[in-house]
């Protein structure tokens, strides 16, 4: 089985405070200065693919893993870590355009790469990522590839060399599908999917090998036939304030504060329920 996991490194937005949320004339917010992390849904996707590879290994066959991102060189450290974890190929598509709200373009690039490689039969990616929050990239990628798609994936198990069991949340409940690839899996809230940590030894073994960096023109053969302009433009960006007139309940100890909360407010509010 040949697996591609597409991921994105994003700024840790919880580290920005009030004043940092200013928008410039290009509808941009300055996030360069905060620490980055792998988008949590993509992190789950990366770990689920590794767990699948573990299962295959235990069953006596191997799964080929590739990791792909569309980013600048800031993501290279993550790509090297992924190689150290067992991703045989770690590829970066270098792209200048502002892709925050352009999932159609992102999907086209991923599809173009997948078509060029022409050997994948399983693709994982997180259902959405912070900043864009488009929640469209996996769906459009599936459509462009003509592949089936399972959304809100919470877990994957190997049944045989060519079949998988995929659990996913739907509106009606937890659906478990036994499937045969090709398929695109859009990972949702998957418990127990923190990404494992590579050893220094493994990183050292990978250190000399450069990251595979490609550009849009390297993909022109497969990209040219794909729709690229989605007919959507961002026209305004503004911070959302979610404040209430909060009153802090003071007291000399915990019991006193709790008593105040109850007698002065909660008791009355409970009768209104």
């Amino acid at each position, binding site marked *: 089985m040949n697996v591609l996991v597409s991921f994105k490194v994003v700024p840790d937005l919880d580290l920005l405070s009030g004043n940092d949320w200013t928008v410039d004339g290009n509808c941009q917010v300055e996030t360069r200065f905060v620490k980055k992390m792998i988008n949590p849904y993509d992190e789950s996707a990366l770990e689920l693919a590794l767990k699948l590879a573990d299962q295959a290994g235990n069953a006596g066959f191997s799964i080929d893993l590739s990791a792909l991102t569309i980013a600048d060189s800031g993501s290279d*450290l993550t790509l090297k870590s992924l190689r150290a974890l067992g991703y045989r190929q770690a590829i970066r598509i270098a792209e200048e355009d502002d892709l925050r709200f352009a999932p159609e373009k992102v999907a086209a690039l991923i599809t173009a790469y997948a078509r060029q490689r022409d050997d994948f039969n399983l693709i994982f990616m997180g259902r959405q990522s912070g900043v864009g929050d488009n929640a469209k990239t996996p769906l459009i990628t599936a459509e462009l590839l003509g592949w089936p798609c399972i959304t809100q994936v919470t877990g994957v198990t190997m049944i045989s060399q060519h079949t998988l069991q995929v659990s996913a949340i739907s509106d009606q409940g937890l659906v478990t599908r036994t499937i045969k690839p090709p398929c695109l899996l859009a990972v949702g809230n998957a418990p*127990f999917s*923190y990404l494992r*940590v590579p*050893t*220094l030894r493994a990183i050292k073994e990978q250190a000399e090998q450069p990251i595979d960096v490609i550009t849009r023109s390297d993909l022109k053969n497969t990209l040219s036939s794909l729709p690229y302009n989605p007919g959507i433009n961002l026209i305004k960006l503004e911070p959302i304030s979610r404040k209430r007139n909060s009153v802090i309940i003071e007291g000399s100890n915990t019991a006193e504060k709790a008593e105040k909360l109850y007698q002065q407010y909660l008791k009355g509010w409970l009768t209104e329920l």
Partner: protein
Amino acid sequence: MALTREAIVTALVDIVDPDQVVTDEAVLKESSIDRFRRFEELHGVYTQPLPAAVVYVRSTSDVVKVLQFANKHGINIVPRTGHTATEGGLETVVENSLVVDGSAMNKVIKIDPVNMQATCQCGTPLLVLEDQLRELGYTTGHSPQSKPLAQLGGLVATRSIGQFSTLYGGIEEMVVGLEAVFPNGQITRIKNVPRRAAGPDIRHIIIGNEGALCYITEITVKIFKFMPENNILLGYTLENMKTGFEILREVMVNGYRPSVARLYDEEDGAYHFSHFANNRCVLIFMAEGPKGIAEATAAAIEEIVTRFPECEKVDTRYIKTWFDHLNWDATDIAQERAEIVETKNIGNTTEISANWEIINQIYETCTERMRNEIPDMTIIGGHSSHSYINGTNLYFVHYYNVVDCKPEEEITKYHWPIKKIIVEETIKAGGSMCHHHGVGKHRTPWIKDEHGSSYYILETLKKAFDPQGIMNRGTIYPKS
């Protein structure tokens, strides 16, 4: 004849109020350890003997009664306040110990802006004191990463140090007067004076005793004017640690006292600053204080750094958000726990100190040996964060995947061998094996090597003040 657990508890509820004595099993389990054994704890494994009880003292007289009782019956006492210790100092290594928790003694007794002093009980959280001071325009100047959780008693008992120490000093420079209770019940109050020569400075018997000599009940610290508007942050990346140490030395030797002077190697830098470090070392300074001094300090540091052309200046916005989120809080610790259990990856630290001449050699030897001798390492790195005119500290950071081993074996397989390398290389080179976390229970095998002939002074203090050996057995002084 040793008392049974039940007899200990029965006696205690006569000495203090029954609701001050806790014997709930979950509480006893978590009270048998500190952060040193967190990997075991995360897996629900508790290898230390459970204490007989946790006693929440409410006053100095409670402490007197409990210590006298323990002294009479040879019961091991583990003094505790914020429970953030990292070196095993809070482990109850002896059967039927009593953990004496001072966190209920949490009053800020007096803030004195005329004499620039603040007095509080041992269970006052540092953050509470600091917040009260800041509202009035003052600061303690003490900012360890454990600030949101740690309390003054423990901070003094471990000779702790904070992020701004290069300007404000460690806790030993901040303490003015103290009150402590000794095992025989003697209450000793040391008064608040600016300086004196009335015999040796006895505060230093109490500061850093890690609960092995006495129980600290009250602390007075100096306070400083809080002038954050004058803070100037500077950041650079550079090729190697050797240059970084040279720059730190130049700054200190030429008389400058930035509040923050931190040098991170590539590994530790990658962990904290992956968004700009680019596999280089990172150097961070903060100049603080009255406007003229902060500006002069910053200008001098900039000039010193320009003499080292390999340094590249970094936009301080990259560093500011990191700095604002440096301290631990309860939720970070909780999140960390879940990730550790799942990824089986855990990290800890070993902090040492040494003179300028030998610090880089210690850094290189230890990191090289860890790389070659310890399996499954995922991060081997370190940073210097507290500098002096004659040297600096080094905070080794070591993360590893726990592979093929039971939770209770993690320490034997990884942590102790790592500490052994760092401690032995440091002592061999002439440095100190403990910069600011305290000896705890796990560096005691080397305490005699650490002190050499001066161990005579340390061991005589123990014989004099704790002849029954009831104070935190196994801390600083080896268990036997």
